[in-house]
Each structure stands twice: as C-alpha cells, then as structure tokens.
C-alpha cells in the first residue's frame, strides 16, 4: 500500500503494548500490537473458531513473541507467564443479526421498510395488512426468533393505508402483549395516529416501550433517518461493524484515497465506502450498508444456492452442495482445507454479489482507489481473495486490493477520537493491509480478438504482455513494488474514462497486477461443465495449489 501519512507520536500515557479482539459469531481474532522502534507494529495475530478462549489465543500470541524475539518480549513485559491481566484491549463484537418483524399497511410500504431494515443489519420477516389476514400478521410477528417489531405506513399515509391504520396499531399491541419486552417501532404517520394517542384502548403498550420513528422516505437519501434509528436499536457500543466504518473513515483520511471496505462474515456483512471530503466536518464522506443478506451463508433467499453453484469450480451435485453449505453454517471453520476451500471461495463470490446488490447504488459506478477485504476472506490465500474481488466487483478502473488479515481495523475503530484513531491507523496501515495487488478492469473491448498490450515499468525494468478481450492477464508484481502500467488498446475501452491509451500507477501484492478484460458474470458459458472449466482455469492461475 502506498502513501501512509507520517506516523504520529506515541501517546505517552498509553501502554507499550495493546491487544485487539474481534469476537465474531464464527471467528475469534486476536492480535498483539507493540511500540517498537518508535512506532506501533503488529507483533502477532491469529484467528480461530468462535468458542476458543480469547485469553488462550492471546497467551499463544505472547508465546510467539517470546520465541521470535525474547529481548523485545522482555521490553514489553511479556518475558514469562500468560497474557498480562492489565493489557489494554480494544474489543469489538459481532453477533448473529437479530430479526425484525416488519408489518405495514400496504405491500409497497412493507417492501420499503424491509429494504431499510435489511440495510441496517436486521434480518426481516414481513407481512402487510393488504396481503395477510390479522391472524397471519400476529403469527409472523410473534414467532420464536423475532427480536423487534417495526410497524409503519408511508408518511403521509396513502389513501389505501389510512383505513388500515387503526387495525395495524391494534396488531402491534397484540404482538407486544404476546412478546413482552421486544422493542416496538412505529414508523411514519402511524406514530402520530389517533389510536396510538389513545393507547391502551387497543392494547398498545405503554409509551415507554414504543419507539416513534421517521417514515420510510425521511432523510437524505430517502430512508436514511429510519435506518439510523434501526441501527441504534440493534447495535451495542462495541458493535464491530460500526467500529469498522469508523476505521474505514480513518483509512480514507490518512491515505487521502477513496476506500471501500467489504466485510463478509458468516452471519452478517457490511460494505463501507469512505472518501476524503474537506467539505464535511469529519473530513470524510462515509456511506455504508450493513446487510445480513450478504453474509457468507445467508442462503435462504430465492436463487442463492444457484449463484453459489454458478461459481463453484469443483464437480458437486446440487444436493451435496446444499449439505456442504449447511455443514459450514453449523461449523464455519470446518473443512477449511481440501475441497472445502473452493466451496468457500464460491460462497464468498455469491455473498459478495448479494452484498453489492443490497448496497446498490452505494459508491456509484466509479472504481474505488482501494478495496479492503475482511472477515471470511481471511480463510483463503491472498491471491485467491484478489480473484474473488476481481470476479465480483466489476467497476471499470484501477483499484488496489488489500486484506485486513489480522482483523485489526474493527477493533481500532473503538478509539472514539478521530485524530487519535487516525494516528494509530497511519502508523499501522502497512501492518493492517496485506497487499494483494492491483486490478485494472477495462470494459468494452471487442470480444474474440487481440485487445492490445500492457507494458509495466517497475524501477526501470519493463515487461510487456498482450491483452485479449475476455481474458485475464497476470503480471508478477511483488508486494511493495510500485510500477507504471502503460495500456494501449486497439479500440476504445472504458477504464474509468473512455480511451485507447492509459497510464496507470499500480502497486504490487501477493496476486501482482491483474488486467481484467473479462465479461463477468454475463459472459460465462451457460453449460455448467464449460463454466466450471473456465472459472477453474482462472482460479488455477492465481491459486496454483488448487490443482495439486
């Protein structure tokens, strides 16, 4: 990665060593960060299945520091014994996403409310008075596993909604009585309606149990006010995905670049777009979508298994694939090796597709300067992660790719003060981001013929590669290497801008430079065997161990 800001001075009051813990629903990730040679450095990190004892992992990491550098261990107070009890820790948690019952007067409003809740980190179960009878509405909203109730109308209510408002409020009351303690959120005009004011006559719980929320269209963009409230209801102060968004903002400020962070977890997923913007008080414009539908194993939706099947590069019948994925849901860390790895890679591609669809049009069509992957991506080798990102994020332009392999970003987001967090991120940027390389996506090359040529000039040594439309060209460019890619096409292509000749600065990484002229996913063959062969070919090029 290039261009971290100058390292900030160490806070004299802080310890010379701190730990980070990212306690997810599937993974417990721990890291030790120490003050070494006048700056903060990542000393050791490990990720293990959730349920492993965090102190046992930290003790393991302390042992590793001792073995690697006994002198440093002594300096940092790790000479002997288990992890020090007084060790400062930044801890974040990500739990399985809660489920909210969404009840609306009309189908249109239900869809709007479900979409907003689905982007605020909630799983949803929907019903509408227009489509379901009151018994079905109450049944859906009182099922086991429902953690909150959102009832709403448009604001102002549509004509067909007005007559149903009293019945909706009564249904909310019926749910609240049957499921005491769950938050009841009344959105839009419903919260100001006469039945709510009347309260107990229709069984509405006491005012203290009810949250009055903005309507589905309030805010800029529409729905953002309600989404903010729903995030507040769901997330605790140590929520990992909120903390990750704060760190993404710091990364964008520190690097002065447009950063996109994609975190695909086993049960949740978040996509954050952060861009430096001097016109905002925080100096950064931050958009995010927290969409459980983009989780690695959120496979209950229609067509979700089809998409995993479309990306799988090993021969596996559909029933067997379903069972393998169901097993992963029970034990997300099992079968990490062997053919479990390509199945994970396929599930990751499908999950990333869902996450991007849920966030559309977040970030627009412009390729970000840097994409940082975290979460389940850490289970794959770096080059395989680069290919997954290149396969799914299809925005024309040049993008650097990085992997938050030690899962430091979210815990560092627990530093509340922007300046202090920025300083820590600046010092640790090179340790946080494992460089995967650069992907250049060009679209519009005429298929079936030579597309042009790329010349990569790194430290005066130049290499040339012919480019073919529909193909993926790989240029070996090791981590830390900066270079200039000179791309000359035979016809006009789209690469952020339209043209035939482009000079693009690129950075190396585990995958090197990928010049991607593929038409994905639309250009993949319909026949499963041919599609699998094509995908496996690209996979083998970047992940040669796959064919061993």
């Amino acid at each position, binding site marked *: 990665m290039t261009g971290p800001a100058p390292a900030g001075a160490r806070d004299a009051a802080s310890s010379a060593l701190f730990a980070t813990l990212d306690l997810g629903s599937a993974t417990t990730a721990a890291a030790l960060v120490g003050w070494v040679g006048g700056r903060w450095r990542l000393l050791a990190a490990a990720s293990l299945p959730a*349920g492993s004892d965090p102190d046992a992992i930290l003790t393991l990491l302390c042992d590793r520091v001792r073995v690697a550098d006994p002198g440093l261990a002594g300096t940092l107070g790790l000479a002997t014994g288990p992890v020090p009890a007084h060790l400062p820790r930044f801890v974040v948690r990500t739990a399985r996403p809660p489920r909210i019952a969404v009840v609306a007067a009309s189908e249109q409003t239900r869809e709007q409310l479900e979409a907003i809740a689905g982007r605020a980190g909630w799983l949803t179960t929907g019903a509408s008075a227009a489509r379901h009878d009151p*018994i079905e509405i109450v049944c859906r909203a009182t099922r086991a596993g429902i953690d909150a109730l959102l009832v709403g109308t448009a604001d102002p209510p549509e004509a067909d909604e007005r007559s149903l408002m009293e*019945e909706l409020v009564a249904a909310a009351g*019926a749910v609240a009585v*049957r499921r005491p303690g769950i938050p009841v959120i009344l959105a839009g005009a419903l919260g100001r309606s006469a039945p709510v004011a009347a309260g107990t006559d229709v*069984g509405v719980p006491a005012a203290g149990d009810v949250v009055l929320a903005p309507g589905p269209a309030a805010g800029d963009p529409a729905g953002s006010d309600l989404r903010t409230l729903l995030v507040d209801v769901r997330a605790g102060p140590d929520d990992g995905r909120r903390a990750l968004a704060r760190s993404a903002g710091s990364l964008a400020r520190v690097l002065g670049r447009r950063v996109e962070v994609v975190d695909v977890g086993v049960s949740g997923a978040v996509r954050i777009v952060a861009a430096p913007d001097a016109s905002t008080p925080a100096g950064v414009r931050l958009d995010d979508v927290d969409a459980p539908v983009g989780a690695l194993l959120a496979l209950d939706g229609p067509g979700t298994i089809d998409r995993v099947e479309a990306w799988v590069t090993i021969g596996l019948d559909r029933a067997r694939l*379903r069972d393998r994925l169901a*097993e992963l849901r029970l034990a997300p860390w099992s079968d990490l*090796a062997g053919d479990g790895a390509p199945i994970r890679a396929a599930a990751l591609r499908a999950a990333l597709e869902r996450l991007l669809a849920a966030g559309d049009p977040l970030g627009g069509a412009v390729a970000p300067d840097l994409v940082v992957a975290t979460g389940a991506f850490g289970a794959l080798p770096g080059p395989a992660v680069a290919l997954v990102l290149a396969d799914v994020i299809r925005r024309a332009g040049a993008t650097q790719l990085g992997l938050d392999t030690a899962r430091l970003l979210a815990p560092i987001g627990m530093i509340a003060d922007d300046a202090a967090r920025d300083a820590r991120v600046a010092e640790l940027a090179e340790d946080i981001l494992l460089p995967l390389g650069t992907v250049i996506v060009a679209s519009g090359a005429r298929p079936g013929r030579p597309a042009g040529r790329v010349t990569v000039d790194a430290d005066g040594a130049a290499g040339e590669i012919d480019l073919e439309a529909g193909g993926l060209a790989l240029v070996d460019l090791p981590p830390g290497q900066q270079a200039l890619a000179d791309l000359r096409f035979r016809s006009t292509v789209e690469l952020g801008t339209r043209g035939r000749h482009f000079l693009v600065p690129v950075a190396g990484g585990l995958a090197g430079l990928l010049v991607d002229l593929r038409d994905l996913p639309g250009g993949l063959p319909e026949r499963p065997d041919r599609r699998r062969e094509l995908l496996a070919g690209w996979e083998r090029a970047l992940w*040669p161990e796959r064919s061993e």
Partner: protein
Amino acid sequence: MSRVGGVVGTAPAGLGLVPARQLLVGAPRVVLAIEPGDRVAVTAGTAVGPGELLAERVRDPRLVDAGSSRGDRATPGEWVPAGEHRRGGATPAGELLFAARGRRRVVAGTHPDRLDAPVRGRVATIHPGAAIELEVEGVGVPASAFLGDAVHGRLVILPAEGDARPALDVNLAGAIVVFPGRVDAETLIRARAMGIHGAVVVALADRDRRDLAASEARQRAGLHRLAPFGVVVLDGNLRRPLAGPVAAILVALSGREVGLAAEPALLLAGRSMDGLPLPPPDRVRLRGGADVGAEGRWLGPAGSRRFAPGIQAEAGLVELDGGRVVVVPLGDVERFG
C-alpha cells in the same frame, strides 16, 4: 486444575484454543410454540409431567367479530367465552386477537390436536398465542436441528448398521428411537406411521429434511389427525458416526422416558447430571477433513501450518484412537464441554 467426569487432572496445553461442544445442559428452559386461538390448559407455575396436556391446538383458525369492545378491559390473548351478539347471533369462544374500531376480534376454531409436555418440569411463563416456556427438571442433550413436534417416549437405541432402512416393528410404538447409523426420510416416515413418537439421528441430508416436511404437510392438508412426531439431528447434514461421548450418554438414558423439544433443539431427560458419563477433558473429535468423525486425545497446539490447497491455519496435534497422530486445522477439532 479441572474436574470433569470425576477425574481430576491438569488441562492439556492449548485446550482453550479448541472450541467446546456442549454435551449437557442442566435444567434447560424450553419454549413450546403456540399460535393465536390455541387453548392453553395450564397456568404459570403448574408442575407438569411428560404427556400432560399443555394446550389444545386450533385447526383452521378463523377471525370472528365478538361484539363491541366499549367498556371492555380485556387485553389481547385473553380467552373470550362463547356469547351472543346484541343482534341475536352466537359467537364462539376463542382468543382475543385484538380490539379495533370498537370491535373485539376473536380467533376461534376446533381444537383437535394436543400439545403435551415433553418432559417433567414447571410452566415458567405463558405468552398467549405465542409460546409456553417450560423449566425442565432434568438435563438436555443439545442438538443442531429439530424437525416436527415436541414429543416424549421411552428411549430405544437401534443397532448401528450400514443399512439406511433398519428394521422397525410395532414394539417401538410410543418410543423415541436413536438411529446411530445412516437414515433417510423414508425410514423416518415409516417410523411415524408405525406409531414411533420421535427419532434421534446423527445427520440428515437437506433432501431428506425437505421430504419429511413435505410428507407431514401432505398429511395435514388431508386434515388427518396427526400423532406428533419429532426428530432431533445431533450433528448436521453429512453422514458421520455418532460422537462417542454423546453415545455414552444415550446408552445411560436408554429405556428411560425422554422428550424432544425444538426451541432450543434438545433431547430432554428428567434426571440430574450426576452419574451420567462424561469424557476426559482432552477427548476431542474431528468434525471435518479426511478423518471426519474420528475421535482421540488432544496433544497440544501445532502452530500455524499450511494445508492444501495453500490454506494457512492454526493447527493442533491429535492422537486418534488407534494411536495415529495427526496434525489438523483447529477448525476441524471439537472438544466436549
């Protein structure tokens, strides 16, 4: 120092790195789902035994207007007795769903099906139309999934054999049967038809789960009065041997009255944990990889290793039963907590 299964010893190095699978839950609280219109037959605090009626389930519930709610302080969920309209029409008894626009809306219907207590316990709370929570006097064996209804019966363990369709006979009617080997939907449907109350299976493929659910839905659509039938799945979807420590507990419970419940998925027994066999703390099982299902002894962490195809992962050393020592990713190991 730790004390598990009556053995005092020092925990082996790095055992805390291995995720624990809970073997037993003491005095669990189970949630039995009911729906609006179901008639609850108990009150909070009532002591119940296995097979005692908790609620009568409504079949084909319908919403009826039970007259004006003006001056009526009834809250949703209360049972409204049968009555008469001012206009002279009769209204059936049912559960007040809610009152709106000055009218009481009641869920009524016939109640041909029973919800019985799956095990001895005490009714903790009742949420009308939603759930009855039962505090179990005994222990639960956690499972990964539950299909069907809460049931109870005598626990019978069938012999472990390779045949997916083991012999089932009428002697097993009313029992909860453990299938230690392979099982498919057809076997389970046959078991239900023979009056077996429930099944405990190690794994069940997704296709078999859907076939079983579809068979039950077909019978319900035919308005047959279905005897309750429940299935707990101890592991997952792919076939593997029954975990030794779980098998030992099932053997200890064999012949006793047990129950199955859905929320959480548990096999329930009305007895204390005392005397139930527990494994030594370093007993582990492989739940993935080439040796899936194999068990052995945890030897310690093996550091960060590279596994095919190029996967870097924290690893552990396990001595399998039989003496072979393997290095496996920690994600493929589970211990019993």
